[in-house]
């Protein structure tokens, strides 16, 4: 994979990131078109809201998967991580906008009451607020400006992902296989973080050992 990355010419590599943004927004566009033209069955607003929420979770999972993929399988997708994170942000933003505009008809009293009184919405909103912060500081200028604090700040993504999974599981009448799947994915990806330093030390030690005694093979 690393070789493959290197093999891609600079221009193509940049283009592939933009392609990811374009492809990533297709589910939202498709869902909006289906809903706006009356092609979503039953309760189209809820269907669309749920579609946006699910894709937000998927992009959060993809963002969190970048590091373990490189650690464990040597697949380097670091180049795409910012795009994946921002896609998650755009989906959460659309999810919330659909709820505000299409579902609640901008009835702000009802929206404020929902956020204040329904724990699953409170948790979702808290996650969204943190995600806004990360989206605003996702540019190069912020990275340079914030220095080491940038890394600390962006560790908030762990809290955001947990909030997202919780928000989803708490929103349904019965926590079913689909909810458990997302909870499990996010739990595994978060659990990797504390395990990671130990794994990396062993990996490095192993690599060093190989280097010293090549004749063993």
């Amino acid at each position: 994979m690393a070789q493959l990355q290197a093999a891609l010419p600079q221009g193509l590599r940049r283009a592939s990131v933009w392609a990811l943004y374009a492809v990533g927004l297709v589910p939202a566009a498709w869902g909006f078109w289906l809903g706006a033209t009356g092609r979503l069955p039953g309760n189209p607003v809820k269907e669309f809201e749920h579609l946006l929420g699910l894709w937000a979770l998927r992009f959060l999972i993809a963002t969190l998967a970048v590091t373990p993929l490189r650690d464990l399988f040597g697949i380097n997708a670091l180049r795409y991580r910012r795009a994946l994170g921002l896609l998650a942000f755009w989906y959460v933003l659309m999810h919330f906008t659909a709820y505000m505009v299409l579902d609640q008809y901008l009835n702000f009293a009802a929206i404020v009451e929902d956020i204040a009184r329904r724990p699953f919405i409170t948790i979702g909103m808290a996650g969204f607020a943190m995600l806004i912060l990360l989206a605003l500081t996702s540019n190069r200028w912020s990275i340079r400006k914030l220095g080491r604090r940038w890394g600390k700040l962006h560790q908030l993504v762990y809290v955001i992902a947990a909030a997202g999974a919780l928000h989803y599981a708490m929103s349904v009448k019965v926590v079913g296989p689909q909810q458990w799947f997302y909870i499990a994915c996010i739990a595994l990806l978060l659990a990797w973080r504390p395990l990671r330093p130990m794994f990396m030390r062993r990996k490095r030690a192993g690599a060093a050992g190989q280097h010293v005694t090549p004749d063993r093979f």
Partner: protein
Amino acid sequence: MPAYRPPSIPAGEITPESIFLNRRHFLAGAAGLLALGVSSRSLARPLQSTESPFSTDEKLTPESDVTAYNNFYEFGLGKGDPKARSGKFKPTPWAVKVDGLVSKPREFGLEELLSFPLEERIYRMRCVEAWSMVIPWTGFPLAALLDTVEPLGSARYVAFETVVRPEEMPGQSGFFQPLDWPYVEGLRLDEARHPLTILALGLYGKTLPNQNGAPVRLVVPWKYGFKGIKSIVRITLTEKQPPATWNITAPNEYGFYANVNPEVDHPRWSQASETRIGEGGFFGANRRPTLPFNGYEQEVSGIYAGMDLKANF
């Protein structure tokens, strides 16, 4: 230039759906018998009924939505699951056992249920999930059935039970089971005997599709939809309040009474308003205020006189 006027067709010349369905049914049945001997069990059968003063004149929810957007966890958790995954379910033959505190316990075969005088009841249906429909049911008052078994003086509640058939109902098999089966529900006897409470055998003038609770289900229009237990196999009159599936699963979210009440929120959403299903895409759908007792306040509020409806939600 004179404007074009479409020819007006006298109402009497339009073939009622039930009759042309009859023809289709006959043709399909004949073809089936001739060709493969395929059972006509899965075919919707037309039902004759009379009109009812209890019907609303609100715009009907399209049949395509009534039969495709369902909560029926025996077939899966998704709204589309009941339609997509109920093909194996066999609603005939069928029998409903009526027992408990009655002087004449007995079983009712499906044909016997269909021989009660059937009425069309166009009711609002308000789901606890804050959406609603307007559905033309075909059925008869539950009171008529209860009369034939003669409840004893000690009977105060009516318990209902759904069929358990894991081999025909995919939601009842597999390693994930969302609820304890059988699905059970209950009503107070006076609620069960209320003239609005019906056993429905059909909708849109035909026998019930599997996903809507074939072959017989309960409809209590002033209560949240989950009280309308589907595919009923047993009705038992009891002295004590019987268990109700959602009530025992999450007592803080779903009460035993479950009367539609815009002032008692579900912990996770407001019940003050609702979305009418099937009114077009994003921009045709509208939120309308939810009415106390789902708009049936005049008819039913009397039986709850003096009761704290917030405590007994």
